[in-house]
């Protein structure tokens, strides 16, 4: 039997509108886009950062610097899960003094962002770090908040909030899944948070 999401809370159009709005907010808050660098957290954050860079370029005619961050070696739960598949960090600019916007798909406990901040600081000393996410689903376990949010989604611990983006996935949506349904299915699908 094919697995079904409990609900689809954003579609391609609403995600596009959210990205456009976040792009405007980033430019407004930083008074232009010349000093901004977007750093996407692998994997969905990397794709979102790229889309966000396109939006910012369309509005402000300047393409922000773009980097990716792999936090595998900074996680606090490495020893509780199987060793993760590894991707390489790529930050092709000097991070010292830069205004960094970290980009991720779902903000949940805050532990991923904590790991990302640690990883980032090992590359240098940014002037400031802001956080942009597509979905904030609550349940924070650390004192972390997002500066830019696509959509606030109240959720329960028994649910997964997943972001899918083409062409990596077959659709561009944000969906809520029941964790109970998930049991026995593969854990790799979607940006499971």
């Amino acid at each position, binding site marked *: 039997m094919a697995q079904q999401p409990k609900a689809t809370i954003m579609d391609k159009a609403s995600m596009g509108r959210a990205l456009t709005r976040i792009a405007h907010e980033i430019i407004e808050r930083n008074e232009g886009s010349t000093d901004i660098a977007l750093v996407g957290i692998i994997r969905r954050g990397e794709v979102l950062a790229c889309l966000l860079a396109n939006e910012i370029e369309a509005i402000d005619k300047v393409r922000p610097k773009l980097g990716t961050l792999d936090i595998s*070696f900074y996680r606090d739960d490495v020893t509780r899960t199987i*060793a993760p598949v590894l991707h390489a960090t790529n930050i092709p600019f000097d991070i010292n003094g830069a205004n960094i916007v970290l980009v991720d798909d779902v903000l949940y406990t805050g532990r991923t962002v904590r790991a990302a901040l640690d990883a980032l600081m*090992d590359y240098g000393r940014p002037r400031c770090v802001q956080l942009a996410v597509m979905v904030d689903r609550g349940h924070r376990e650390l004192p972390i908040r997002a500066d830019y949010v696509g959509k606030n989604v109240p959720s329960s611990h028994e649910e997964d909030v997943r972001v899918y983006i083409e062409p990596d996935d077959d659709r561009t949506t944000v969906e809520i899944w029941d964790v109970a349904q998930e049991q026995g299915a593969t854990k790799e699908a979607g940006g499971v948070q």
Partner: protein
Amino acid sequence: MLSVKNLIDTNSLTADDITQILDTAKSFDPIVNNRVIKKVPALRGRTIVNLFLEPSTRTKSSFELAEKRLSADSLSMGGSTSSVVKGESLADTIQTIDAMNVDMFVCRARLAGTPQRISENTDAVVINAGDGKHQHPTQAILDLYTIREEFGHLDGLKVAIVGDLAHSRVCGSLTPALKTMGAEVVLVGPPTFQVDDPSWFGCPQTADFDSVIEDVDVVYMLRVQLERMEGAAIPSRREYNRLYGLDERREQMMKPGAVVCHPGPMNRGMEINTEVADSARSRILKQVNAGVLTRMAEMYLLLGGENNGISA
């Protein structure tokens, strides 16, 4: 996750295991080679004991550096400073250290089978850093990494391993690992140094270096253990160099793009001549760099299995 709990020999590793180690090592490359802060907190809070019962400089420092780069806490013990010289049995030494609740043993020993014995006396993970004439698996993995970086793949490559085949733990580990990854291996050495079993891992064996050198992608020179010369296994340094050494004449016979490896330490002028060791074909220093990356990967993957109670 690897299919093994300990890294004792390369025969137990699957092609998947080896690929996973090499890929993980590759992702450590930018951290170790491009960053100002060359470490990650991946093994923070883990304790690793380096038990080196036989002298070693490069392997030991490579492991120590890999442990520091992963933020593990480590402790190095040598044969002459440990209670083994006071007559304590190995099993007692291991159980004593084990009682201090360590997570991993890295062991170098003169006696083959020592790491296996250790693993039977502890719940900690054991990595073999070279045991007698048996195996030196972390050397083999760093060699595979160096070769894969060079050619982009391992399958279908032809590798000549040259020297003291019968007594070399490097040969004992590298040969099965290369075969697992689909490479072809030809063994070259004087009859006194050849392996007894002519069908060993299905590798052809020859005493005629010149007959294979034009044909291979990698020439892997083993170190001649000079201490063995007293047993008259080799008549003289000069004769060995002429028949089995890698000199400029042989280097020029190699295929374009073919490379030279050596596990170190080198006996220049014996198994390898200075002009070749320092030539454009030499990947010997690349091997040293790969040693830290691959050892980081092995420790990270072997200790990344279960909950150890760490949380941020």
